[in-house]
């Protein structure tokens, strides 16, 4: 994977995903290693995302890399109307790898075409956020012991949620049964369902969460945003139907784990936090190991 950009989850094949997960496991055992002390990592956040930025910067720092960059667009030449092409070309002279987050969809792919150093996409608008997907894969493999033949339940905003889209696409490689729980107006788009159909996998769609819980190996919760509804009354009608409470988990399989890309608002009740099935906080920590694995393998310091 040396010098390869990671823009979209499909840029890496199944073997490469597994390789990254294995490497992340090694970094989890030994998170602090001075293997990137000769490298400069540029962290370019054209839109703020403190959580993702700190996770990346923590990963780079633990490996001894030097960091340059910015955390919000106000401090950049973008404000002065510089093109993304020029910004990326300039910064690629100063660093060995670029981590970028940008509000426009496709910006990271474009950056990878104009830069002569590799790019890691830390989110391009509503499009892709592949490091989130890899940390989700890592969390699921760690808790289930495998990635194949799982029943995965996706809950909430399946229409606009890019983490859901990428994770669904990634799990199309693993003989997954998909259970899609959402309000009618927030169903998974057909552009994503195409990938499930291409692999001849099964998906079921529901509007009720309760019925599907007993079959689930993983429940992936996401937030439903009020702004997604043109009629506020429609939001009021559905908002409580997609909240997970502890007593709903009574008939769950013992191996069930609950994931959430965070931040959570109210879609998982606080009483779930102490249930051993709650995994969302550990899931976020796993992001650091995945990002260490990506930096190290793309910069070529590990095989």
């Amino acid at each position, binding site marked *: 994977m040396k010098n390869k950009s990671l823009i*979209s989850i499909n840029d890496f094949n199944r073997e490469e995903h597994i390789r990254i997960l294995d490497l992340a496991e090694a970094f989890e055992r030994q998170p602090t290693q001075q293997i990137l002390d000769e490298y400069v990592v540029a962290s370019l956040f054209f839109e703020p995302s403190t959580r993702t930025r700190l996770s990346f910067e923590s990963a780079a720092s633990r490996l001894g890399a030097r960091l340059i960059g910015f955390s919000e667009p106000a401090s950049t030449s973008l404000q002065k109307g510089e*093109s*993304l*092409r020029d910004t990326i070309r300039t910064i690629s002279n100063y660093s060995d790898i670029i981590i970028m987050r*940008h*509000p*426009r*969809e*496709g*910006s990271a*792919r*474009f950056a990878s075409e104009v830069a002569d150093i590799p790019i890691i996409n830390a989110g*391009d*608008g*509503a*499009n*892709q956020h592949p490091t989130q997907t890899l940390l989700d894969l890592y969390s699921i493999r760690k808790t289930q012991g495998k990635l194949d033949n799982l029943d995965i339940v996706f809950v909430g905003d399946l229409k606009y949620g890019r983490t859901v889209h990428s994770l669904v696409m990634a799990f199309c490689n693993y003989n997954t049964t998909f259970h899609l729980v959402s309000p009618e107006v927030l169903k998974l788009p057909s*552009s994503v369902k*195409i990938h499930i159909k291409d692999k001849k996998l099964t998906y079921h769609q529901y509007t009720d969460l309760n019925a599907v819980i007993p079959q689930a190996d993983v429940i992936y919760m996401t937030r439903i945003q009020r702004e997604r509804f043109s009629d506020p009354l429609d939001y009021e009608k559905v908002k409580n139907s997609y909240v997970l409470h502890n007593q709903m988990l009574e008939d769950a399989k013992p191996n069930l784990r609950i994931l959430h890309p965070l931040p959570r608002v109210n879609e998982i009740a606080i009483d779930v936090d102490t249930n051993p099935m709650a995994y969302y906080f550990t899931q976020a920590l796993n992001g650091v190991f995945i990002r260490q694995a990506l930096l190290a393998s793309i910069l070529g310091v590990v095989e």
Partner: protein
Amino acid sequence: MAKKEIRKELKVSAIENGTVIDHVPSKSVYQVIRILNLLDYDNLLLIGINLDSQKMGKKGIIKVRNKFFKPAEINKIALVAPTATLIVIRDFDVAEKKQVSVPDKVEEIVKCFNPNCITNNEEMPTFFRVINKKEEDLKLRCRYCEKITAKDTMEFF
């Protein structure tokens, strides 16, 4: 039948060597000319709109003297003129005749329908993979934002 039709056209304004693009929907003639950059062409260009056609009712026709298109170039027009026939003329005779076909990839000529796509916010060409070639269900996937531009949302530059 089609052959007879062509002969009739050629009688009116035959070209010795070049290309005839026949069976273009009349409303698409202007787009075809733009896609093929024919407004900048410095040789004879004949354009017919609303000609009678047994096959289509009314049709457009474009004749370009001394111009021979590469398949990749000509297939671009299949997006706006899927019915078009390409006729290569040498010494006033039909040397070759074929239907245009939708290409696997589309560069530059189509706009991504997603307003938040980087291609609509930076000076750069667009690039799409064609994921459904059926005329009524044509679908292009943007290389950048990965969204699908379908026939009903398709705009040309």
